């Protein structure tokens, strides 16, 4: 197995172009597990952990651009107030050791339906920045995933960053697992409220072949809130609105039975989480 260790972004892209079979590795919290379990034996590894550009984040044009190599620990510490939903998700990733090593770039690259970062990024309408020697493109996250552990990432491309607006309003994330820490999502849900634009964002995890938005639920709630003038004068959400929202979130899912849970339970849990997460986010909105 060859091992490439670029020290600059330009070198990383050149190496990826030259060795499209090389698997990028940053924190190694997914790749090393796959190697350990003998699930893949890539011809080469491309270690991008020493590329300084990837470890940076900045703010421009009202957006945050967060390098793919920023760890979950740093996300929580440095970006918690600006990306509260993502920070909540980051706190649930593995153990402290895993959060010190693991990166959102890696989460996106693995494209697991259970990736913890995906639902809040979907809810926040983030985009993924993909780069190659051919150039850079920005892909909206809901067009990025194409199947379980598959994405639009081309063989010569690397994930350079994700781009997202700082949370315009309250955000929530919850995740169901069968123990109280260090657990892969059985199902997860994120919601993001944008009172200025009157927008609602959602993301569901571990309940479909890819992480996905619950578009029907977003549209329903946006219409309800607009019609009732609730963005301007927030009042407690009526029970039937919460129920219908939860129902539509569940309708967007297409879960399966697997070793971590049943499809029926995943649907049930999504409905409970959608109702609770929305009510918490709405309560935050009313408080402010």
């Amino acid at each position, binding site marked *: 197995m060859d091992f490439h260790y670029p020290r600059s972004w330009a070198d990383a892209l050149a190496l990826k172009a030259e060795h499209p079979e090389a698997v990028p590795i940053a924190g190694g919290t997914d790749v090393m597990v796959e190697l350990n379990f003998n699930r893949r034996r890539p011809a080469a590894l491309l270690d991008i952990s020493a590329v300084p550009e990837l470890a940076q984040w900045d703010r421009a044009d009202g957006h945050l651009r967060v390098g793919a190599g920023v760890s979950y620990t740093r996300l929580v510490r440095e970006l918690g107030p600006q990306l509260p939903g993502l920070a909540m998700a980051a706190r649930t990733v593995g153990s402290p050791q895993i959060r010190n090593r693991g990166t959102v770039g890696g989460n996106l690259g693995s494209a697991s339906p259970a990736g913890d970062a995906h639902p809040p990024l979907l809810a926040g309408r983030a985009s993924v920045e993909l780069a190659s020697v051919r150039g850079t493109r920005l892909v909206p996250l809901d067009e990025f995933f194409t199947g379980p552990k598959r994405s639009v990432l081309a063989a010569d491309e690397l994930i350079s960053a994700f781009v997202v607006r700082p949370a315009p309003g309250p955000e929530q994330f919850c995740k169901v697992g069968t123990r*109280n820490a260090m657990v892969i999502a059985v199902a997860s849900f994120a919601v993001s409220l944008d009172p200025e634009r009157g927008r609602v964002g959602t993301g569901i995890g571990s309940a479909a072949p890819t992480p996905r938005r619950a578009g029907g639920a977003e549209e329903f709630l946006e219409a309800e809130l607009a019609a009732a003038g609730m963005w301007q004068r927030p009042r407690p959400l009526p029970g039937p609105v919460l129920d219908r929202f939860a129902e539509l979130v569940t309708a967007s899912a297409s879960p399966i039975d697997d070793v971590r849970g049943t499809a029926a339970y995943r649907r049930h849990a999504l409905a409970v989480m959608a109702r609770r997460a929305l009510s918490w986010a709405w309560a935050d909105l009313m408080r402010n």
Partner: protein
Amino acid sequence: MSTLTGQTREPAAPGARTGNGIGDDARRPDGTQKVAGRFAFSSDLWADGMVWGATVRSPHPRARLISVDPSEALRIAGVYCVLTHEDVPGQKTFGLEVADQPVLAMGEVRYQGEAVALVAADSPETARRAVAAVRVEYQPLVPVVDPMKAMLPTAEKVHPSGNIVRHFKLRSGDPLAEAPVVVSGEYEVGMQDQAFLGPESGLAVPADDGGVDLQVATQWLHVDRRQVAAALGLPEDKVRLALAGVGGAFGAREDVSLQIHLCLLALRTGRPVKMVYSREESFFGHVHRHPARLRYVHGAGRDGRLVFVKAEMVFDGGAYMSSTRAVIGNAGTLGVGPYVVPNVSVDAYGLYTNNPPCGAMRGFGAVQACFAYEAQMDRLAEELGMHPVELRSLNAMAQGSLMPTGQVVDSPAPVADLLRRVWQAPLPPPLPAVAGVATEGLLPGGMANTTHGEGVVRGTGYAVGFKNVGFSEGYDDYTTVRVSLAAGPDGPVATVQSAACELGQGLVTVETQVVRSELGLSDVVLETADTRVGSAGSSSASRQTYMTAGALREACARLRAGLLARAAARLGVPEPDLSWAHGEVLGPERAVLGLSELLEAGPLEETVEWRHRPTQDVDPETGQGDAHVQYCFAAHRAVVDVDTELGLVKVVQIDTAQDVGKAINPGAVIGQIHGGTTQGLGLALMEEIQIDAGRVRNPSFTDYLIPTILDVPPMRVQVLELADPHAPYGLRGVGEAPTISSTPAIVAAVRAATGRRLARVPLRPQDIVGLDEAGAEGGPSR
């Protein structure tokens, strides 16, 4: 009697005087190394010129083995050999009780992961590639996987002898007894794994005499040696075993895993051979806890007194026998719990199937039965309108009670007292009354922000359990120790030689504590546990402290007798005029002879083979007989918060009361109780090897979940020390009792919170919210 209470016990401050004798919180000699990451575990073994072994395993739960073609693997540079059953020079099968498992598969593979061939290569990576290159042709067969079908006479046979490994029958009292209050239930226990953290590993080195030296992490060196020597066709003295650093065991190292394989490869290659299982391979490389289905009928008077218990239990032993017979003996003899029941009928079956082999795990048959009989006691209490502790106390066994086997319980059995203690222990503060507040990690769902109080209901549950200590049913159970005493430059030194295995449970402190107390000296050297001395028996069945302490006490007594004889000769007085006190011999007229003076004449040595009192085989038709040496008892109260809408559980507090007879090392006792309780929590809430058509679905710590620190609540432990007059120092085995009742206590608490029957462990979220028909059998019970 004394009571120790500790939540966490502080280690002695540096420089503080610790006696380090019996009853002191002796520090582990390996503690600092382990905490600092410097302890050498078996996976750290190394030898110059060593090669790496690896195992070709069957992907099929059942298949005819057509052919094994090693040619492609042998062409890989760096591959030394590929071995199949044809290369096993001696007995081609092994087994703890009956040699029914092929060293390497012959004719048919009977479970997924069965070892088919071995390779040795110059690196782990080459070995891995060689394993992939061995061409094995199988003809898959339909596996026998449903234990209820496997036990039918018409079932296809996993072994020619039939699928029923043991049918244990217990009949006592009136088989037709009737009672005014009757409850019945069916229960299921999933397959738990011991989930030790140090996967199987070892190093075998070929010796000049044609034999082999094997260093391995194991629970019982001599039973390994017997099986290795038989398979190699060597006399036992040519096979020498030494204990390597053990990273946990919990029963999973009682059976042979890679021991024979390592030695076969070492003798074939003429080189040292190392093997280390990966975590995934480890799930296929050792036996698990028997999954079980249990059907119980309890009958009681209106006053709550038990009239009869009828039980039928089916334990799936998987493809090979391992210790299934003994597990069934325990489940059967202990099957009604620590209660007095005049009329009992138990049928316990252990089966062969094509599921993964099952054998020893902490609690060994008592765990499965306790989950069922304690659920029954709660249902009976509910039916009678009694408090669950009152009903249990009313029926509790005590010293002098009769077991359903007819055996008299002839030492303290404080069942009612243990229950009362956990009942009366302080409760945690109540749940916050107002929902909607995020409390990180404290509510069900832990860190994952699934509730701010919505749907959360608190429940409390109780359970008590018991288990035999030591090997039962007439087994000749003994332990050998050799203690030598010599003058050293800084005073007398005692050296202990023993084959008893330290697994992390703390035997090493027990050994030094006993010798220090008995000989009144401070310098005790423990030699590496190995086969230069006789068998110590297994470090299992909560027996090793009992047995080794008994043997060491006897050896020390003989050494003292030798010292007295020397003193008598030296002082010219008869021995009866001499006495022993604190490491000195006191003679008439204030004559004092210290150990060092007495050892000037040379060292002394004693070898002792020590047995606990004998037990009896039980009658095959009635289960009657004095089957057990001693019982250990523990009771738990669990307080849980359940998110009743999401089916998630947070255990808020667990209180344990356990009688240990005598705490040799109180700190280690508390540690055992914490650990055992946690392992029972794992079975209650998350730990299960999931099997589908004979295949393991979750052989990893990603999907086989064990409790994290956020799942483990504060534990208050009350330790009783009621001496067992038949046991050395009055002690009772400690390790297993806390694992037995913590599972039913937690499930009882979840039942109390949800009102559901919950007849299966581990509990799954879908069972708790009532989505799963099987798990939610009967629906809400109130």
